[in-house]
């Protein structure tokens, strides 16, 4: 449109055509007044004289008639930038570019010509165009966002073109409906509803005012019945921990962990890691906001409403008060407590020891294949036999006039003359140990006999060849009978032997589990067999089971009978020792967990109220075990002393312990090939 306007200007025509393009028929009347003030009103009035139709026609044609001087079309003018012409006129001749005006000339022109401000350079046609004042006005109006013509009235009065008041045909001939004249029923209903709601106070218009709802909630608190919390017992939440020194903003130096310690926290498990690492600030001003404040508040809330609560009794007592009150050790003397003598001589672990009934001699068997007899008081080794095999167990005949040793060597049992005592005694012992002929061979059932009595040529003794390995030997208190245990012997596991008759038999057909040890009652005709879990008590006369003691242990290792005969102690391989009061119950009266490793042997003292246990953990315990003749009073058991001194060898510690028959002395045999005597 821009250049077409310029065209009009160039022709110097009046603006009639242009005017017409703005003025449609409707507005023509108003046009007159609006342009009256304008400078180009004269030219405008000319166009006003024309009829509406003519104006419209002219405006249509003017667009077609006027053509630009240049005919290059709507192409970018840069294409002609380098050329000397700007395009072609209608006849195809080049239109030359005009010479460029100097600045001074332009200035001068500007100064001379008052109309110069209305001149615009038309780049397309390469000429200067002067716009009229009206046009300038239009441009300014357009810039302001108004309609281009000042004459236009945007809000004219409405003219009703269709007057049908007295015409025959109104637009709608339907009669006015009644509802136009009657108030609405539904509206009325709604209003009634609202009114009712307002009257009844269902709808309130005023905002509820902020009332102060604080008052003296807790009145006088004298009425105690009222002031009880109802329902279940209330368990108050534990209060959060109070902060320690380390949480201070400026803790003392010792509360701040070193860098290495902080690094080492990273190696810890998540839950072990300290949650708070103390830090030091030089002044209060530099303490930052604690970023976990909200989080910790939230965690506390979670604890308060999510954690199950129970009342827990937290005992705040001195741990010492948990220990049972024991009678003073001084009152329980004498008991062995310090090592007095060491018997040295064996080359291997001493597996078993036995003290002669008079207390003068001590026999020991060792893994180095020797049996030694020591004089107790001096510690001198009186005799050495080389038996040529591990000695597992050794037992001295309890009769002083029969100095006979029973020893388990390898698989079998060996009976030898200890060669102590007077000549006469020794002679008698020799006599006893004589076998005239080979024991009668009972091969009737085709089985290998359980035991064969054989003469041991070298040591001038007797060997009892068992069908399987023997593990334990124990004498009857009268010194004639003895028993051996063959753990893998099935129905022939526990054997009874008679020394004088050189006879053996196996009284027990069936046992609950593998037998471990067997022993005689110290006074009565009773017999104790310890299997892995139970201790069976048999009456030998009636040949029947009297009692079955349940130890509750996994594996019993040793058993000892109180000289009174009613109390039994049993040691187990899990380091526990239990005391049975057979009159009281078949369950342990007391179980002591004293050793950390297997108990190897337990033993009672024959005279003093003492018992001892030895264990693989290189210790022996001496305990006071008083049995009262009053049946109502339970036995008193007091641990007295831990005897140390043996050193561990090959993972084994103390292998055997025996009391002196008359003195409160304890012998212990260690795997370090030493026998120790502990005295009061």
């Amino acid at each position, binding site marked *: 449109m821009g250049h077409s306007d310029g065209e009009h200007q160039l022709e110097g025509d009046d603006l009639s055509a242009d005017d017409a393009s703005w003025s449609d028929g409707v507005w023509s009347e108003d046009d007159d007044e609006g342009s009256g003030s304008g400078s180009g009103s004269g030219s405008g009035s000319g166009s006003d004289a024309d009829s509406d139709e003519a104006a419209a026609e002219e405006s249509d044609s003017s667009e077609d008639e006027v053509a630009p001087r240049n005919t290059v079309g709507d192409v970018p003018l840069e294409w002609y930038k380098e050329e000397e012409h700007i395009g072609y006129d209608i006849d195809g001749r080049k239109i030359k570019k005009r010479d460029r005006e100097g600045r001074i000339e332009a200035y001068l022109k500007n100064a001379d010509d008052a109309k110069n401000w209305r001149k615009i350079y038309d780049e397309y046609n390469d000429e200067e165009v002067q716009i009229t004042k009206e046009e300038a006005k239009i441009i300014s109006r357009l810039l302001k966002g108004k309609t281009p013509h000042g004459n236009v009235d945007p809000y004219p009065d409405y003219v009703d073109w269709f007057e049908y008041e007295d015409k025959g045909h109104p637009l709608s001939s339907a009669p006015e409906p009644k509802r136009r004249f009657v108030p609405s029923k539904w509206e009325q209903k709604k209003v009634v509803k609202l009114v009712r709601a307002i009257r009844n106070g269902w709808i309130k218009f005023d905002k509820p005012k902020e009332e102060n709802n604080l008052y003296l909630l807790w009145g006088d608190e004298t009425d105690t019945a009222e002031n009880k919390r109802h329902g279940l017992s209330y368990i*108050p*939440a534990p209060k959060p921990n*109070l902060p320690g020194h380390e949480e201070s903003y400026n803790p003392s130096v010792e509360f701040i962990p070193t860098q290495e310690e902080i690094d080492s926290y990273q190696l810890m498990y998540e839950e072990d890691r300290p949650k708070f690492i103390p830090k030091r600030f030089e002044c209060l001003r530099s303490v930052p906001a604690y970023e976990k404040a909200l989080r910790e508040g939230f965690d506390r809330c979670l604890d*308060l409403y999510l954690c199950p*609560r129970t009342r827990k009794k937290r005992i705040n007592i001195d741990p010492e008060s*948990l220990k049972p009150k024991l009678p003073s050790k001084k009152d329980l003397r004498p008991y062995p407590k310090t090592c007095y003598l060491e018997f040295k001589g064996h080359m291997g672990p001493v597996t078993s020891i036995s003290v002669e009934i008079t207390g003068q001699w001590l026999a020991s068997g060792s893994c180095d294949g020797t049996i030694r007899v020591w004089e107790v008081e001096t510690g001198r080794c009186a005799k050495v036999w080389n038996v040529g095999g591990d000695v597992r167990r050794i037992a001295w005949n309890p009769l002083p006039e029969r100095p006979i040793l029973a020893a388990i060597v390898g698989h079998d049992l060996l009976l030898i003359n200890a060669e102590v005592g007077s000549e006469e005694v020794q002679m008698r012992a020799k006599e006893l140990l004589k076998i005239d002929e080979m024991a009668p061979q009972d091969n009737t059932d085709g089985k290998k006999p359980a035991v064969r009595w054989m003469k041991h040529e070298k040591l001038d003794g007797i060997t009892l060849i068992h069908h399987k390995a023997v593990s334990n030997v124990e004498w009857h208190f009268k010194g004639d009978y003895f028993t051996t245990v063959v753990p893998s012997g099935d129905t022939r596991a526990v054997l009874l032997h008679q020394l004088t008759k050189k006879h053996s038999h196996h009284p027990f057909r069936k046992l609950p589990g593998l037998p471990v040890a067997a022993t005689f009652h110290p006074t009565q005709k009773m017999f104790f067999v310890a299997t892995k879990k139970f201790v069976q008590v048999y009456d030998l006369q009636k040949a029947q089971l009297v009692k079955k003691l349940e130890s509750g242990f996994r594996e019993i290792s040793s058993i000892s009978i109180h000289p009174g005969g009613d109390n039994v102690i049993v040691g187990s391989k899990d380091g526990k020792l239990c005391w049975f009061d057979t009159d009281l119950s078949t369950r342990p009266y007391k179980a002591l967990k004293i050793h950390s490793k297997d108990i190897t042997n337990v033993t009672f003292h024959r005279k003093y109220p003492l018992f001892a246990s030895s264990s693989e953990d290189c210790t022996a315990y001496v305990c006071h075990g008083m049995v009262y003749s009053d049946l109502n009073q339970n036995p008193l058991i007091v641990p007295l002393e831990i005897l140390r001194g043996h050193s561990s060898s090959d993972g084994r510690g103390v292998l055997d312990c025996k009391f002196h028959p008359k003195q409160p002395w304890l012998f212990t045999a260690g795997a370090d090939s030493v026998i120790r005597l502990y005295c009061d």
Partner: protein
Amino acid sequence: MPKHFRPAGKKKEGNAAKYITRTKAVNYLQVSLAIFRKLCILKGVFPRQPKKKVEGNHKTYYHMKDIAFLAHDPLIEKFRQIKVHRKKVKKAIAKKNRDLADRLLNRPPTYKLDRLVLERYPTFVDALRDLDDCLTMVHLFAALPAVDGERIEVKRIHNCRRLSHEWQAYISRTHALRKTFISVKGIYYQAEVQGQKITWLTPHALQQVLTDDVDFNVMLSFLEFYETLLGFVNFKLYHSINVNYPPILDPRLEALAAELYALCRYMSTGSGRVIGNSESGGVNEKESGAIKENEDGNNKASAKTDESELRLAQLQHQLPSNEPGALMHLVEESTAVDTDDDETKECKSLFKNLKFYLSREVPRESLLFIIPAFGGTVSWEGEGAPFNEIDEDITHQIVDRPTQSHVFLSREYVQPQWVFDCVNARIILPTDGYLVGRVPPPHLSPFVDNDAEGYIPEYAETIKRLQAAARNEVLPLPGDEDLDNSLVAAMMDRTESNETAEKKRKLEMLEKQYHDELKMEIDGVTFSKLSNEKPDKSQDTMDKDDAKSDHEDEKKQAEKDNDDISTALMSRRKRGLYKAMEIGRERKQDKVELLKKRKKNADSSASAKRR
């Protein structure tokens, strides 16, 4: 037959009947989990630990009676109403019925918690006993940013701030504050109200960040209850000292974020002085007008002054009604002084006759709370302060910056920690260590029982000595002396016992030597031999030492045996308990050892540096 077989038609018994899992409880109450949660929080219902967990180990169990308790609460109906109301509003908005929606929004169903407070805490003491969490929470929310569009309503934060200030004003007024502690987490306070020790934590007065890892619904539910509770507690406390509860504050001070001060003044006086002070405040205003407020970004202060003056005028009309009360209160006060226990008296007079002035950079709210609580007068840099920096009577100025531009010689410039340490030690500590620019001595927690813990920090001992000195100087009371004497006596006893032990050991050594010699004599070693041997012995003194150490080992072993031997007779349960206790004791011991080691290292490195 399964383990918990129950024949048809037979009721559940035992734990199966008594306890109910959470899911079942929610179904039973016919509410959503969120509402159940809120109910539990408001009613104070918590899960319990049944003896036998019938439904499985990993479930939460509530007591059936608790659930029945919830089911009968009117609150549950209220919550349903609120749900329905919310639906109505939503529907109205969806139907473009703006009118109805507005009307509904104007009147949401509301509920009150006063009944619940009374139900949970039938007596006032019960409430005080459980106030710790409440105060910590309210103080935490009071420190959160009061910004529109955050997850917390501004109104509630303002309410929290008001409640916390009211509480602090009460504590300060009645001199009930006992211990304070600046930790990294914030400042801990412990007060004693009606014989109950109440401890709470206020965060440092710095901008807190609202993190995403917390569920604000849960916290706000708690806060709702706590706000109510603290409101009632404050009411009761104010009532007990004859002050009208919703306190009418000087709005100008309120606007200047010195609410606490305003409250204190409201409480301590009746009406007359408020006006006088406000006038003097006006003078101050002119002088310190240039000083900008640093706290709470309260730049609107100046804009508010006009409004506040208007309100002040209103206040003056209101105040005379308080006057009889104030008079009564004065009368009461004179009697109350007599009834105060010793500790309160001590606290009251700690900062007596001292005048403090706070610089801009110190935590003002905290110190404005503490110093009056211990009987001191305090002012601060800023508008509305009762007196300003040039006041000649100021004895201590609390500053926390490395250098000071203008120094008055008549007063001491100390770091804020001094106030806290004085409060904990209950004596006026020497200010040397706390002077400006120095690193103050370590700040120790007053909540730790050093003797029970087994480790006494160095500075604690220093303070103890100072306390003893102060007691001797100020109060030569016979009782105190006795206490000191007993302390000294105890110390003497300990040293004595140590000495006797030493003597005993020496005697034993001698005895042993004697025995050895006797033995040798028995063995038939002549003296000449012995004398020959002696050089050898002297040569290998090392061996002797070894022997000595062996002997000690043996002794230790024997002692240990003595201890162990009685454990053999314990029952398994008791033995377990004993061992657990031993482990705990050892752990504690280890901790103490670690502290001692660190202290030693620090000392040695410090002395090396000095060289």
